[in-house]
């Protein structure tokens, strides 16, 4: 999936970008914690990030077909 943008507040968006998740990034969901817990993501740049579900839901993505 490619990140297109995120409907989150300023500090959270800045924080996401700092950790390595900004628009244009290609991400893969590795796994999710049970009972609506956080998502475990990996970006193409090599960042692995745990993101709370409520934030992940606010991130707009474009699904890429040619994902391995």
């Amino acid at each position, binding site marked *: 999936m490619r990140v297109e943008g995120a409907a989150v507040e300023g*500090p*959270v968006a*800045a*924080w*996401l*970008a*700092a*950790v*390595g*998740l900004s628009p244009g990034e290609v991400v893969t969901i*590795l*796994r999710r*914690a*049970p*009972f*609506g*817990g*956080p998502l*475990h993501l990996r970006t193409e*740049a*090599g*960042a*692995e*990030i*745990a*993101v*709370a579900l*409520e*934030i992940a839901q606010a991130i707009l993505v474009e699904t890429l077909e040619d994902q391995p």
Partner: protein
Amino acid sequence: MTRERVVVAFVGRPNSGKSSLYNAVTGEEAKVGNFPGVTVDILTATRALPVSGVAEIADLPGFYSLDAVVDPATDEGVARRWLDDATKAGARLVIVQVLDGTQLELGLRMTEGLLARAEAVVVAVTQRDRLAADGRDVDVAVLEEALGVPVCAVSARAPAAQTRGVVFDTVERALTDQREARAKSVDARKVAARALVGEGHGRARTLTERVDAVLLHPIVGPFVFVAIMAAVFSAVFLIADPAKSVVDFLVERSREALSGALGHGLLASFVIDGLVAGTGTVVAFMPQIVILTIAMEILEATGYLARGAFIVDRLLRLLGLSGRSFAPLLVAHACAVPAIASTRIIRDPGERLRSILVLPLMTCSARIPTYGLVITAFFGGRSAFFRGGLFVLLYFAGIVAGLVASAVMRRTVVRGRGLPLVLEMPSYRAPQVRLVARRAKRAATRFVKDVGSTILAASALLWVLLTVPMPGASPAVEGTPAIERSVAAGIGRALEPVTRPIGFDWRINVGLIGSFGARELMVSTMGVIFGVERADEDPAPLAKSMQDAKKPNGEPVYGVRTGLALLAFFVLACQCMSTVAAIRRETRSLRWPAFVVGYTYALAYLVAFATYQIAGLFGAT
């Protein structure tokens, strides 16, 4: 020519290998720099550069971005302020950006901002050995050309002296460097793609992936988590408790030796019961602090701490905390003092404060013997099943109280939901023994320095309260202990109207005053009041005296109601001056420790009141 001061600052993302590179470059001796108003440690060391002479070398806290500063007290804010101050102070600032070679692109995103910031910039690429294991390498010349600053690549496997030489030479090159040559903008993705050579077969990645497949497995993961936490706990009880017994023994011996040398005067009593006992309290905490710091550092360095946060985040979100709070909450079940220090890993300031405020409610290891003694004293005649059940109930009452308090505070005192979890999941790595040992040593010295002094002062004050006679008290009556005429006894009697609705008489009040410093002192203070020697070692005679105590009308003074109310009080009240001192240190204020004392005692009184009255309704005496 006057030489300007050279300051070399190591910066980089967390987990970039910055601390181990710093360690290799500066060697063992580095001191914690004084930086006013913050609790984040900045290490500094003075070393001679080959040409430019003596330089101050600083290890700044790891950060992801200099621009996304959420709060000045977090690592980002501290690092930025430090860099600003160093620039203002007129020193020649050399920034060494430490960059994880396996995450080259992520690190390079920060480089552009750093290039604009300092007079000289060096990029040091770490983890070269891991790249090599993957069949790849980083092309230093490509990076130098693209960035316009000196670059070096280092490996954690190389000898420290060699690494130091490489880094210092690069720093020297940066000091003679022309600023104009620097890149104005850095396209991290392109530069990273060009600088990485060789076909990666992704072996390093798969190791972390394979471990994660087990440790983060939806069913196996939580079990492993519980097992690891249980291991940390057992370590505290198996190692710290015997160590604490040794310390207690030594303190007891030195008290005996001192009382032999100093006699039984007032001054001797002050030294022995005030100062030496206070020192004993400080030292007795050390084994726990050291072991817990080591355990937490190992979990952090291996990368498991982030995994633990991932697993328990959902559960803690229900209660207004996030996955980051789990480690402090866990540590608090051993001891609140190191737990309060470990809240530094919580990034959100509101959540961190909330955690600090509720940690004293957790059932710490000091409460366990105290519960045992109170239960023996009041419920000695009951069945073992009853006493055991009461014990378990008390243990979980602490967790429930803490979680409820956190949920309430989120809506009142410390508002805000807190940032939802966004957390880097670093690759698994073997922890470096030296770094872990150094952190443990630092935690211990910091505890003695900051918390120790407060504990000593409070011990001295308590001694005065329990020993000095109340002004205007009736002269000593033969056969009554001196404590009955003390200031504490005066206060205890004055408090009786307040504590009568919860079933405490003046003697319990004095016990509570005596145990303000440390809750385990309750039993020995009660022993002194009832004239029972060594009540903390064998509570049975004290229990007997208390059961025999009768009101003038023949009813027992201490019934089941009082016992239950007292236990409720002990669950909630923050009777631990070490905790109060630790909160003062971590919040840098008097307001929050005062708040903790205020709210826990108010809560303790209310719940004790409810317990006493409800037990009365059920016909308990």
